[in-house]
């Protein structure tokens, strides 16, 4: 049984409880009073199909699939505007991140969403050396839709790249390796452990 199915079974008619138990800061969702200040404060408000406040209402209304497959929370730029204005002090930014992560873990995150993809690429890039390699990150983004479109993208951004290089803010040699953490294995073991702890907990919650 997939984790998703197990969660559906476990929480049945109570998505709010599921969110409270498994999503980063999800326990706060119940405290929303539907004032809408987050919705109005989001700089990307126009892009959201469901605003944070509406997502919270949908959670209470057990609209599980709609919430978890939504691309809305992937619009979050982590600007924290909602958090500082929320009259109930809900950590909305974190809840958005948490919902996104949770959806991804359950395999429900919208595959087509570019930020979802970028986020993963960023993480993988970072995990390779313990520090981000901006050049590789950029290139991998350009090439995300295949080699041909990657070349096109690269050409389109060529001027920018050249300028950055000229200003010594981009180093072509980075492609060969670049900066990194010395104790890479320690770092990776640490992350693995943290991931395991979370995974076990989620697994246990689904029972």
């Amino acid at each position, binding site marked *: 049984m997939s984790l998703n199915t197990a969660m559906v079974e476990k929480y049945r*008619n*109570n998505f*709010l*409880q599921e969110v*409270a138990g498994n999503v980063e800061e999800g326990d706060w969702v*119940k*405290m929303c*009073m*539907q004032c809408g200040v987050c919705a109005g404060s989001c700089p990307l408000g126009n892009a959201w199909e469901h605003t944070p*406040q*509406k997502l919270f*209402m*949908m959670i*209470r*209304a057990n*609209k599980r699939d709609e919430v978890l497959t939504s691309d809305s929370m992937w619009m979050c730029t982590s600007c924290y505007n909602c958090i500082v204005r929320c009259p*109930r002090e809900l950590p909305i930014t974190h809840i958005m991140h948490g919902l996104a992560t949770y959806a991804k873990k359950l395999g429900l995150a919208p595959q087509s969403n570019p930020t979802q993809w970028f986020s993963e690429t960023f993480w993988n890039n970072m995990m390779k050396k313990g520090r981000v390699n901006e050049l590789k990150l950029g290139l991998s983004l350009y090439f995300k839709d295949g080699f041909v479109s990657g070349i096109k993208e690269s050409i389109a951004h060529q001027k920018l790249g050249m300028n950055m290089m000229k200003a010594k803010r981009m180093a072509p040699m980075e492609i060969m390796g670049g900066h990194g953490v010395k104790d890479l294995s320690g770092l990776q073991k640490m992350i693995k452990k943290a991931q395991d702890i979370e995974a076990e907990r989620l697994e246990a919650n689904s029972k």
Partner: protein
Amino acid sequence: MANYDKKLGAYICSGCGIGDRLDVSQLETTAKRDGKAANCKTHDFLCSKAGVEMIQKDIDDGEVNHVIIGGCSRRSKIEAFRFPEAAVTRANLREGCIWIRPDNDEAQETTQEMADDLIRMACAESKYMNIPTASGEQELNKTLLVVGGGITGMTTALESAKAGYNVVLVEKAAELGGWMAQLHKRTPNKMPYAAPQDTGIDATIAAVNDHANITVHLNTTVSKTEGAPGRFKVELAVESGSASTVDVGAIVQASGFNMFDPANVPAMNHDKSADIVTNMELEALANAAGDGPIKRPSDGKQVSSVIFIQNVGQNSEEEGHLPYHSGIGDMVSIKQAMYFKHLNGDCDTTILFDNLRTPGAAGEDFYRAGQDAMVTFRKGIASEVVAGGDLEVKFKDMILDEEFTESADLVVLDVGMVPNSGPDPYAADNLPKDEDGNPIEEENAVSVESILNLDYRQGTDLPHLRHGFTDSHFICFPYETRRTGIYSAGPVRRPMDIHQTMEDAAGAAMKAIQALENAGKGRAAHPRSGDLSYPLFRKEGCTQCKRCTVECPFGAINEDEKGFPVFNESRCRRCGTCMGACPVRVISFDNYSVDTVGQQIKNVDIPDEFDEKPRILVLACENDAYPALDMAGQNGIEYSSFARIIPVRCLGSVNTIWLTDALNSGYDGIVLMGCSKGDEYQCHFVKGSEMAHYRMGKIADTLQTLSLEEERVATYEVAITDIQRAPKLINDMAETIEQIGMSPFKF
């Protein structure tokens, strides 16, 4: 009535510019010659210690017992010019004369005339008034009657007893406690406002039963109440048929409420399923549960999902619904939702609300506590509860803008409180009217059984304000009922929760205690608190026309077997509406009578027609219009020097004879200024202004008889804030006179 030689002393202040603007020695002469004031003195700073001492010495020496102050307004320097052993009148030379007139040579003559008249008027008033003393018929009865043995009544009783008074507590049912005794828990009244609390009702009942100063009468109703504050005689009827009489000084009505009948909202299908319950019915289920889970009535299944529907039949214009809101229903539902969270484990608990009404500090804290306990709050309007094995609630989620159908084991309806207030004495006046002006009967008219059975000319119970509640109409004076010495408390007054009701009970107890104490001394109740005057009545002149008994805004006046009025002085609020109503002018007060005003009118000097100096009589309510005119003076707003302003207790006290006399003696115009009337009346005596307007509607006949133009008399509603408008109304009249000409009735 007073029986003493009046010694008038006129004291004229020349300070505050009065001496600069007016010929003060002439004023003194006027007071002596026209005002017949034996003792006349001028002081350049009358309110100073020396000035006041000068007056006091004359009083102490027996030279003067009627003091006339010519200086600032009666609203100014009240503390300085308080001479309790003398009758004091004031001629308003400052705010009412020099401050409203331009300081120039041209205006000097008319300003002086105005001042002279003000002195004449004050002297005349003084001459015709008496120093009021209590009638001597008072009784001090330190016992209160409390009607209703719920939390309101019990709290009233305990609070009064704690202040050292005796209480007779009457309860219709066989036990004390009322609705509160049926509650499983109450909403919290202590920080941190996080969980339902024990009601503590048993301890309250025990405290009432144990208190030496409280006598409890169960299974008892009030079958008759007669008398007045300080001397009410109350007949108590016991269910068994026996009766007794108690004497009490004041009464608190704490007759509570009934629950709205959900049958009035058919879509909720309350009668179709035992699992659709009202909020009060849920309390019984919670009590029955003990410490175990709440079970649904139909089959005893443990409730695992419950939906609360808020606002059922409330705040609605639909037929059979309540036009108001109980206000407490959301708090109650949060409390009850917590029952399920505490008793039924993982129970899904949803509250469908429209506007979540959890006000104040305690309210918002409790709302958050409910959310924290995982109660689901949805802004949703329920359209129907479908009865069946599993109940279904159809509603529109207002946030998601979507129709939903959710099933539940139990549905709880938040139904409102309906006041248990007895029949409204003025029901017919208050009913909404159809196009022809006939009252439309309200469908859900409340209980018609009388609570107090008052033996009053104007009905058996406290008048309703709105929707059956006996609340006060006054924001500033929430306990002012229209029956002196009888106060209502708790949800009969307005929907309220336990915390508020207990505060209200203490407040009502305070007022009741105050009423009986003052009745014992012959002092008037609010708003003329402390006034010792009372209606005097010349029976031999009375024609038994009953106008006074009908028009008294406070239902104070009864009729004896022959139809003569019985004034019940401690019920009287001293507004003088009876005096204004009396066609044969047999009603008066020591300090306020047809003469005290009539003689002021007569003593104004009326120049002859060719002087082109009209005279405008202004009768201004002392609570609102008169202060507004004072403040006009304070702000240098000018008005006609032809106006002669007389403050009246209430426009309701204006007797048409004053107008007739004024017109006959050559006044050119009359302006009456009372408070706003109608549904949102601001008249402190409730009906006074309305009565006056009604009476003035008929003045046209008088004018016609005298062949005078209708425009010569104008009646206005004037608020205390009409500081610019009130002077303008006077000036308008001056202009009108200029247009239509002087009165032909000058001598």
